[in-house]
């Protein structure tokens, strides 16, 4: 299952790379490369893993098929711990990465803006991180791969005291280990 999904994404990557490289190549080339892979996966698999690693060279930044970092920060409404629907696709990608890499784990850090009491915000931050954790688990990620840590309002991303800063600080962040 794991190998098959890797292979199919490899095929897509190669096709995409060739398409971008230009139209000078003949149409048979990708097929030629793809066929031996299909037939002898045990030989080519190590090479495949190298090519489509889910992580950047620092080994802590998850990347997409083209090597671009995947966003690890998700923002929340004031006093709310509900996931933003537009973040679900990205979270799904994180879930797939974690399912594929069962040896990796994430710390989900929950944060709040400075309004409200510190201890209540610690609880609210945990609610935000837990919302992410619940999503990842429902997408198949093992519970042992996730730890939730709330920092409440103690670690602002932006130390200013205005609505822009507050919006930046109401967040949950995935830290890969």
């Amino acid at each position, binding site marked *: 299952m794991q190998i098959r999904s890797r292979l199919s994404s490899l095929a897509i990557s190669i096709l995409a790379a060739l398409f971008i490289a230009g139209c000078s190549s003949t149409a048979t080339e990708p097929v030629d490369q793809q066929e031996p892979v299909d037939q002898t996966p045990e030989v080519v698999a190590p090479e495949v893993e190298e090519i489509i690693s889910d992580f950047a060279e620092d080994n802590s930044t998850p990347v997409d098929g083209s090597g671009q970092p995947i966003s690890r920060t998700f923002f929340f409404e004031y006093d709310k711990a509900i996931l933003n629907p537009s973040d679900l696709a990205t979270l799904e990608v994180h879930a797939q990465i974690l399912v594929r890499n069962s040896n990796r784990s994430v710390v989900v850090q929950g944060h709040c803006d400075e309004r409200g009491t*510190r201890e209540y915000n610690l609880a609210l931050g945990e609610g935000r991180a837990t919302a992410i954790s619940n999503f990842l688990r429902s997408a198949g990620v093992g519970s042992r791969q996730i730890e939730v*840590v709330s920092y409440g309002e*103690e670690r602002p991303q932006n130390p200013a*005291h205005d609505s822009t800063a507050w919006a930046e600080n109401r967040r949950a962040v995935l830290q890969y280990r």
Partner: protein
Amino acid sequence: MRYSSDFIFARRTFFRPVSRSSVSWRLLINYLGLVFLLLVCAPGLQAASSLDTIIIDRGVDEPIRISIVPFAAPDLLRDKASLANIVAFDLARSGQFDTLASENMLSYPSTRQGVFFRDWRILKSAYLVIGRAELLSESGKIFVEFELYDVASERLLESRDFTIDKSQWRDVGHKIADFVYEKITGVQGAFSTKILYVLAKDAGSRNARYQLEVADADGARARTLYSSSEPILSASWSPDGKRVAYVSFETGRPSIILQDIDGLYRERLTNFKGINSSPVFSPDGKNLAMVLSRGGDPEIFVMNIANRKLRRITRHHGIDTEPSWSPDGKTIVFTSDRGGRPQIYQLELETNFLERLTFVGDYNARARLLPGGKHLVFVHRRNGVFHIAWQDLEKDSLLVLTATDLDESPSLAPNGAMLMYATQDQGRGILAVVSIDGRVKYRLPSSVGDVREPAWSPFLPDVVPAN
């Protein structure tokens, strides 16, 4: 250098706020004395982290005029003048006293024989404090004595003497202020108490530094109990004043630490998955209420400190946090969003009887009961702004005590007369104090970083007991 620039700040802001009381002008003179005192004593203090000079914003409308005459002392006790200043400044920042500047005094008596009550009546001083200090040649210690007189009746109200070390000028000054305050107001003075607070530098950045500090109640003589690159919060005193419980993120998640104020003991009490926070000692010092989310959501637990056994107190899928004890130790008040919004609830431990206490507004949190157990102070949001409010539980009346924004972490003085809280001033976290009737206000700014999370100590054992 640092003090002089802070002083300019103090003087500038001094006249801006409500100056209905005549206390302001005379206090300014006292500031000169205090600044001088700080300059003289600076090498002896850990000035780098002490709070700045207090800025008094508001006192009562008709403060009591009192004269603290500079104490007589031989020249080699060069701090002799400062003792009267320490006493005067303590009384002044209570907001209830108008202390007469020494420059305006007609005479400087140090014994009953030197007192002409007519002089003090002319100066409209209701009370008079005189005193003297002597070096005891055989022990090297200092003998300090004071007398408090009622000017109208010419009666001696109080007199005490102390034997102190040279390093204890501030201790004896605060102690004398306690005696004077109690004799005149009938309320036990809290000038000899201490405060805990968190000093944060560059919070959130890579260079962030968080320090748990302990200082005199006026912010002087600060020293660091624990320093970390990870956040610290929710410090709480043991009722004997010997230990502190607080939350540290040193393990990568919040954990509860128990530590000596003066000794070397330090222990991590809990480090469960999830939240470990809000530690508060029971009035008998045997138990610690706390918040743990190891079961999935934040719930309130009580730990028996001797055997570390945990007892779960709340059971609700929402947020339950910020526990604190009633003075009799029989109930716990806490914050819960079980009604949809954060409100304050009270739980009777023996019967599990639960009662909601707050109904005004949609954000009431982090409550503390006053010594009698009949009044509550807490964080209250009104029109989107966070203030400290006071509520009479029997009459259900609510009084907003503060006018600033982002006010939080109210902590009561042990005599219940005032509370300290955290707020912001020009984008910087500072501590502030307000009397429980809202009439007296002063600030304790810091030029070193953001200060927050104040915790006012209980009454402490006498450092300088009266002889």
